[in-house]
């Protein structure tokens, strides 16, 4: 299903005529998700007298058009009169991303640590429609756009009158709560859409969550802890993170992010930020009984979490530069889970020297050459005022695992199928005992060999050959940094380093590449992301 979805969001190839079945299905899926989240919308579509298709989302309560999509002469168009000028382009997904970027009010903004909410392409579409709905409706009018019958005859029927009274009191806080609730609805819609990609239990879970959001008493974004806990059961999300017995907008984002991503890395990082002190510094978690202690997050253990290749386990790792405290963890769906999603989070904290990339390496050890190369990239990014989020992989998690699980965690189902084929754990193609990434990197290397047959290769500690990092590689690395300047995160594992592009709109590009180089000291540097077209061809 993900592959079908991607086809819609890839750049148009001189498309003409009515929407394809796939495109129409996508629009209707978004409508369903919005309705499921409580936003009362309807849709309509048509074809111009020249054969160009259009599709509109309308406010069901009065039929007003929220947003108009069209494809004119092979170029996509998004128009929301309430939001701004029309956006045009041949890459629909990029247009959606641009729209969201231009209208960030309903999308969780990148945090101060640089982490981003990774949006599923179809969720972007839902976000666009919901954002336009929000802008068009305004604080008071939007109340009527929430269909009180959408969620089981919910308790919000009288919301409009009540809210009007609240506004009459001039209560800024109530205004804020209403906005927060809108945010929650929008995010729930996005998540609902994403969840449709997955299993029935996930759908049920999302429905429950959307219901919980919309059935809030007194129109306040206050979710009883036990209700939330009933909906989702991430052990790490406890009373502390829920701010007592309430959950705020950030908490909603955190929960939904976890749901959405099917990976705890991003969600947990945000959860930690939810616990942040007033000074904005993250309060790092300490091991608790809720965590599942593991001696080491070995690849074997990862795989044991999920024998089902469709539900890949995830990892996460972090480091606190102020204390040198590092942690790693795993997230997965236990094999015993048959009727509900029951994520498991394992935390492992240990003191580990910060990587040379952070500028605080031990003076007794020479900086691996890969880090020197990365340092150049980091300094370039620093000059561009971009703090690179860095994830340290501790213990026995190899860079191969990092790439395998990290890429899936970050990119999720939006990962191009060609890349998925490289990194996906497919037991049928692996020798016993081989890690998924070993085959992946073998494949990657094989393509490199084909591209540059005269290059010198080294053998890494994992018996995998990589191209030697040379001046040409440096140029590619520099171009990669330039190309993705504000969207680069970094994963460090022992003396291996990975820079990856986090911009979802890049994932479907044919210029999206995975590349690894070896240094003479055995360290490696890898990039995953968009390259300028000419270099992507070489790579």
């Amino acid at each position, binding site marked *: 299903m993900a592959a079908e979805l991607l086809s819609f969001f890839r750049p148009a190839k001189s498309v003409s005529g009515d929407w394809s079945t796939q495109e129409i299905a996508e629009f209707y899926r978004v409508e369903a998700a919005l309705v499921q989240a409580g936003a009362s919308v309807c849709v309509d579509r048509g074809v111009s007298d020249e054969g*160009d298709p259009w599709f509109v989302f309308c406010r069901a309560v*009065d039929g007003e*058009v929220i947003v108009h999509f069209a494809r004119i002469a092979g170029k996509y168009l998004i*128009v929301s009169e309430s939001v701004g000028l*029309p956006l045009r382009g041949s890459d629909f997904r990029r247009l959606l991303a641009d729209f969201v970027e231009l209208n960030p009010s309903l999308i969780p903004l990148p945090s101060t640590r640089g982490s981003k909410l990774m949006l599923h392409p179809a969720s972007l579409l839902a976000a666009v429609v919901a954002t336009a709905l929000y802008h068009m409706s305004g604080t008071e009018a939007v109340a009527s756009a929430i269909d009180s019958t959408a969620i089981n005859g919910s308790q919000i029927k009288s919301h409009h009158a009540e809210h009007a009274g609240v506004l009459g009191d001039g209560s800024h806080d109530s205004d804020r709560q209403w906005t927060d609730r809108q945010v929650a609805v929008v995010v729930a819609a996005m998540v609902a859409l994403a969840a449709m990609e997955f299993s029935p239990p996930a759908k049920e879970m999302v429905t429950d969550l959307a219901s919980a959001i919309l059935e809030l008493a007194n129109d306040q974004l206050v979710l009883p802890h036990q209700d939330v806990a009933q909906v989702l059961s991430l052990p790490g999300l406890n009373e502390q993170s829920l701010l007592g017995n309430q959950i705020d907008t950030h908490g909603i984002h955190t929960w939904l992010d976890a749901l959405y991503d099917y990976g705890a890395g991003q969600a947990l990082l945000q959860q930690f930020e939810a616990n942040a002190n007033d000074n904005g510094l993250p309060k790092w978690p300490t091991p608790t009984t809720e965590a599942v202690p593991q001696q080491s997050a070995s690849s074997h253990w990862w795989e044991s979490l999920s024998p089902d290749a469709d539900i890949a386990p995830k990892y996460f790792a972090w480091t606190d530069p102020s204390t040198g405290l590092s942690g790693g963890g795993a997230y997965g769906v236990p094999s015993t889970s048959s009727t509900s999603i029951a994520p498991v989070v394992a935390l492992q904290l240990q003191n580990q020297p910060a990587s040379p990339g952070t500028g605080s390496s031990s003076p007794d050890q020479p900086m691996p050459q890969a880090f020197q190369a990365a340092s150049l990239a980091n300094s370039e990014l620093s000059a561009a005022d971009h703090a690179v989020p860095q994830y340290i992989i501790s213990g026995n998690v190899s860079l191969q695992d990092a790439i395998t699980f990290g890429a899936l965690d970050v990119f999720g189902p939006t990962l191009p199928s060609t890349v998925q084929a490289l990194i996906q754990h497919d037991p049928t193609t692996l020798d016993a005992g081989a890690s998924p990434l070993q085959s992946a990197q073998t494949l990657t290397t094989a393509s490199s060999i084909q591209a540059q047959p005269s290059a010198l290769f080294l053998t890494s500690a994992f018996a995998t050959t990589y191209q030697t990092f040379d001046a040409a590689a440096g140029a590619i690395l520099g171009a990669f940094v330039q190309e993705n300047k504000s969207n680069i995160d970094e994963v460090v594992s022992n003396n291996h380093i990975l820079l990856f592009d986090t911009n979802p709109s890049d994932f479907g590009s044919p210029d999206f590449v995975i590349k690894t180089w070896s240094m003479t000291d055995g360290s490696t540097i890898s990039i995953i992301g968009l390259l300028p077209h000419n270099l992507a061809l070489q790579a």
Partner: protein
Amino acid sequence: MSMLPHKSIEDIHELRKEAGRWLRGLRESKGLSQRDLAQMTGTEYYTFVSQLETGRGRIPPENYPEWAAALGVEPKVFVKTLMKYYDPITYDILFPKQAALRSKADYHTGLASGRD
């Protein structure tokens, strides 16, 4: 409180469809394509004309003069007609005579079609 007729979403949509048919008739009688009309009215994307003619959305009031001119209709007549479709309650208050006539016509249409 006045007892203004309530317009359901179905009523509203039906009126918009009528407006769309009316606009389309005007355009076609002038021999204009949807793209022509969009250009003449300063509409940035011509699929908006198709959308209007289907009965979705409405012409922005600030563009009424351009639309009236492009379709060759006297502006007051154009706006008054549009009001009938876009804002029927206001229209009925401002023009009760026409409203009464229309109600009568609707009644007879209903009888003819077997509606209550």
